[in-house]
């Protein structure tokens, strides 16, 4: 009971013993504050009755960099299927050098990549003469507020937390306004 009391108190709640007498069993009433509906990490997926998702407005050049090869490849194939021109790399340094010739409109960077992490890769890209142009998106398993703040500091435009629904990804691409668009 002491443990339950502590747990309830730690969440700002109260617990009352509603026992009416010996041999009457025990009834406890726990009250805890309701949390307001919070924003999710990622935008909501479109509902089925929305009539599906809209295709991207135009064919975009998209660079995907993730050291999880399966994820990078599957995401690249899916983005191609959505009508985009896609390149895939598996580390931050390759992402920075691949950029120069490809000039992507949108770049998805994992954060915890080998060679050059996503934060540094983003800074390197932003430091290039054309580096202000692409929309750079952190796509990562790290979703704490601190991680998002660091993403902003590094120059990311958006911070998406894995897992991300394919429909959300598609709508996200349709919604973002690339300066080049």
């Amino acid at each position, binding site marked *: 009971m002491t443990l339950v009391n502590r747990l309830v108190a730690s969440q700002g709640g109260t617990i009352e013993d509603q026992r009416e007498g010996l041999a009457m069993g025990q009834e406890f009433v726990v009250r805890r504050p309701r949390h307001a509906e919070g924003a999710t990490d990622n935008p909501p997926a479109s509902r089925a009755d929305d009539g599906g998702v809209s295709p991207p407005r135009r064919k975009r050049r998209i660079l995907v960099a*993730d050291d*999880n090869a*399966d*994820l990078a*490849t*599957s*995401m690249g*194939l*899916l983005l191609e*299927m959505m009508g985009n021109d896609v390149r895939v790399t598996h580390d931050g340094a390759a992402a920075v050098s691949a950029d120069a010739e490809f000039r992507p409109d949108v770049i998805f960077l994992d*954060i*915890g*990549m*080998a060679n050059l*992490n996503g*934060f*540094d890769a983003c800074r390197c890209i932003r430091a290039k003469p054309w580096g202000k142009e692409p929309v750079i998106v952190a796509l*990562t*398993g*790290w979703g*704490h507020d*601190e991680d998002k703040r*660091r993403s902003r500091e590094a120059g990311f435009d958006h911070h998406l937390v*894995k*897992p*991300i*629904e*394919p429909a959300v990804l598609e709508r996200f691409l349709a919604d973002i306004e690339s300066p080049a668009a």
Partner: protein
Amino acid sequence: MSDAARRDADAVRYIVLRKLASGLRHTLMGELQSIQFLSELGARLLQNGADETRMRECVGKIPLVAGEAMATGHSVIEWLRPDEGASTTLGEVVRQCVKLAGDDWRLRATHATVAMGNSAGEARVSRTAARELVVTSLLALTDLHPGALDVEVVAEQEGDSVELRVRARRSSRAPPFPSSTIYHALDWDDVAVLAAAHGVACTCGGDTVALRFAVLPAIPGSAQPREAQRPQ
């Protein structure tokens, strides 16, 4: 072990799991995301009547990534509900723990080197005891010494026991981002509590921890480690 000591050990275990949650999630989500993307791609290819070669390529990848995610999921459950009687090699434990505790070390400019002397890496030890103590030691080291570190893990087998030493040295590398403590900070007292709970000799202080594990007999009829799960 007294009830109070058991509760203290469980409290440390809870803190460790909370601290590892980010790394566990990171690994698991990456693998599940691949399955979702490939499944979605397959569905769209079917719907659009795409060419068979591309469909084969897509569908052919699903069993492999699904298998990896299954193994990772199994391994995560093993961290949450360990099999107390299981054994594994010390080398395997160190590899798992460095990967898991060091999930974000790349961003903290912290590097680890592992040196397993003679047959120490192949020495069989209690999986639960070794996992809990090695990962807690790594987390305590980085909490006690925030900033860029060189972490050295060294093991030597001596007779029927194996000694593992973990040491942190300050590095001059500039971390992309400063260290931040996840959940509660761990210290050497926490490592000592777990060591006592497992009956493992432990000497810790400053920038070094030394743990002495009993070497368990090899599993009869098997030259391979019993570890069935894919390590984290």
